[in-house]
């Protein structure tokens, strides 16, 4: 009997798609057309010859909805593989953020100190601003952003996550 659990879970789903016109639109349309959430989505070609792209989606829903999303993704014609990284075992998920902080004096020094503690790299510096680059798990980025807020945070650009299963097995 399939799960009738009504609690919402977050799932990281990786989809290997044929690199063809409209492939991404099909995936996105599936979510919007059926009212499913996309919390983040990343896409890039991952093979030599750029024939295939990998789409990483963070979504949420009841276990029945997550199963439904995977089945619907899998039946799209250009989809090669669908992997539920959350369910299939441990995985690594990382994202990158560029964070602009505009401040001077003590606030500026404090921002730099915290960035150092987080191993965030200043990739652009002016006398009144920094752009920090930070890579890590989503909560680490969230924590850093929260700390930067009172220190002059003015702009955030995040990539959304790239994810992959731990261990030797592949998608």
């Amino acid at each position, binding site marked *: *009997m399939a799960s009738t659990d009504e609690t919402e879970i977050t799932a990281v789903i990786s989809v290997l798609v044929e690199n*063809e*016109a409209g492939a*991404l639109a099909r995936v996105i349309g599936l979510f919007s057309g059926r009212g499913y959430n996309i919390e983040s989505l990343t*896409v890039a070609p991952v093979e030599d010859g*750029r024939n295939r792209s990998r789409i990483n989606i963070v979504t949420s829903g009841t276990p029945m909805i997550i199963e439904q999303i995977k*089945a619907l993704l899998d039946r799209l014609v250009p*989809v*090669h593989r669908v992997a539920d990284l959350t369910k299939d075992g441990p995985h690594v998920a990382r994202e990158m953020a560029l964070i602009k902080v505009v401040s001077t004096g003590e606030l500026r020094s404090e921002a730099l100190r915290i960035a150092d503690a987080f191993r965030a790299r200043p990739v652009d510096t002016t006398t009144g601003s920094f752009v920090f680059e930070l890579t890590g798990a989503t909560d680490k980025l969230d924590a850093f952003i929260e700390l930067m807020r009172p220190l002059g945070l003015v702009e955030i650009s995040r990539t959304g996550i790239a994810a992959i299963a731990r261990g030797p097995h592949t998608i």
Partner: protein
Amino acid sequence: MNATTDLGDRRQHAGQDGTAVSTPSLNGAEVLLRVLQEQEVEVVFGYPGGAVLPIYDALFKQNSIRHILVRHEQAAVHAAEGYARSTGKTGVVLVTSGPGATNAVTGLVDALMDSIPLVCLTGQVPTHMIGNDAFQEADTTGITRPATKHNYLVKRAGDLARTVHEAFYVARSGRPGPVVVDLPKDIMVGPASYTVASTAPHRSYRPITEPRIEAIRQAVALIKRAKRPLFYTGGGVINAGPAASEALGRLVRLTGYPCTSTLMGLGAYPTTDPQFLGMLGMHGTFEANLATHGCDVLINLGARFDDRVTGRLDAFSPGSAKIHVDIDPSSINKIVPVDVAVVGDAGRAIEMMIEAWHEDRAEPDREALATWWRQIEAWRGIDSLRYSQDPSPSAIIKPQHAVKRLYELARETGRDSFVTTEVGQHQMWAAQYYAFEKPNRWMTSGGLGTMGYGLPAAVGVQVGHPEALVIDIAGEASTLMNIQELGTICQYRLPVKLFILNNRYMGMVRQWQELLHGSRYSESYSEALPDFVKLAESFHGTGMRATCLGELDDTIRAMLAHDGPVIADICVDEAENCFPMIPSGAAHNEMILGPDQNEQAARITVEGMMLV
């Protein structure tokens, strides 16, 4: 989301793998027609326009593919659906760019919802003009993406043949559906090379058709030990081909179990057989719905737990173990969680179930089964499809009686008959009172519920079966939505019979307004109707009318005897409602049997349930 276009561009440079045949003299349109020939296409339903002129020119120069000129692109798609549903082949549509493609969208969604294999070829402005808001340009692949199983835009002549071959494969394999191929005019005019259909597996699309034997054995173990089993069959059995319906007949008779069907599945199992309980769902029979409610093992073969079938979900077949056979894995556990899922072709699954039934050593519980059948016969004794027709010749015709007499008199002719419908009360009455002994004889818009489906669908059925009796059981409101197809019917001398149950209302709307909106008949009266007899004559057909019971049989006989197209305007009781009915949001055991029986029905139901 620039990535979309990036992906596309990269793909375009990725190269082609088909083996080109050296045919330098062909242009794209000619290559297209060669592909259609190789795909054994006999007929194309279409409408010309600027962007597809090269294709029409190529059609003009050949004789192997017939073109049926419809009067509206929506009708082209419904005609192709009727053709596909009645012949088992893939229907082919050809329409121009812009409005041609957008007019086709309703038909495409209809085919998507009912899993009908179609290839729809749409014209497009030349590749260098795409995106310029050119005359008759529309983003056809964008618009039809959620309306199709898959779609393609052919941007390079080298991809043309391979893409169209692939479109046919995708349309007919797995869960069938409509596929659009958008064809820019320059690709059709310019040189193109022909490639034969690839026999290699598709790069990414690999539908599962062969069920897992473990799942079949698990299902049969449940089936064989059932005390109150029920087969619930759907359109998937029809799509699996006539052999699947034949196998279904063997399975049902082998087990001795009762069988019900969805609207889309009618004809897979003979509806006149005593083991058949009638259709289930919103306007299903009392016995079918109460058996669904009371069964202990529900065996879904190629159906999808549609909301018209399940009624209130939390009360749907509450005590049963559920088995679901579906070719589409995304149908499994979508609406109703099931105990055993069998992914694969319904015909294969049924064959394997028959084998597994013989292998399984358990003996069915014949005593429990006999009790179950006694219960079902008690429910059947309610005769939920009864209606009262005043027998006097001047009496007003009951629509149910009109359909019943149509069936009986059509059967007397001994001809192979095919029925299409529009959408509404008449559709339900057709499903309830017309009997179907064989699959592929019943064409109706089930999922989308498209008014205007039936007349063009009848065109497609008649083209596919020139000698057969093809009847569109229609309502006067629905049929006006594609009435222009009388022109197509006349042009090709298609002897389609348009049998209109004319109650001067959008009957199902009127019924819901009566039952749920205090009889406030807001905008549901068919004001200013045409004279259907004269309408038939103006389209070079024959018109007939029956206004009272005394005229009904003669009118039907005259219609059936006439060898050309006929509109039979059957004036029926305007106030008649379609029963039985499970009101929206109600459970199967809360059905209304008829206008006088509401409370009685509720009592019988509860008592009936106690017995089970």
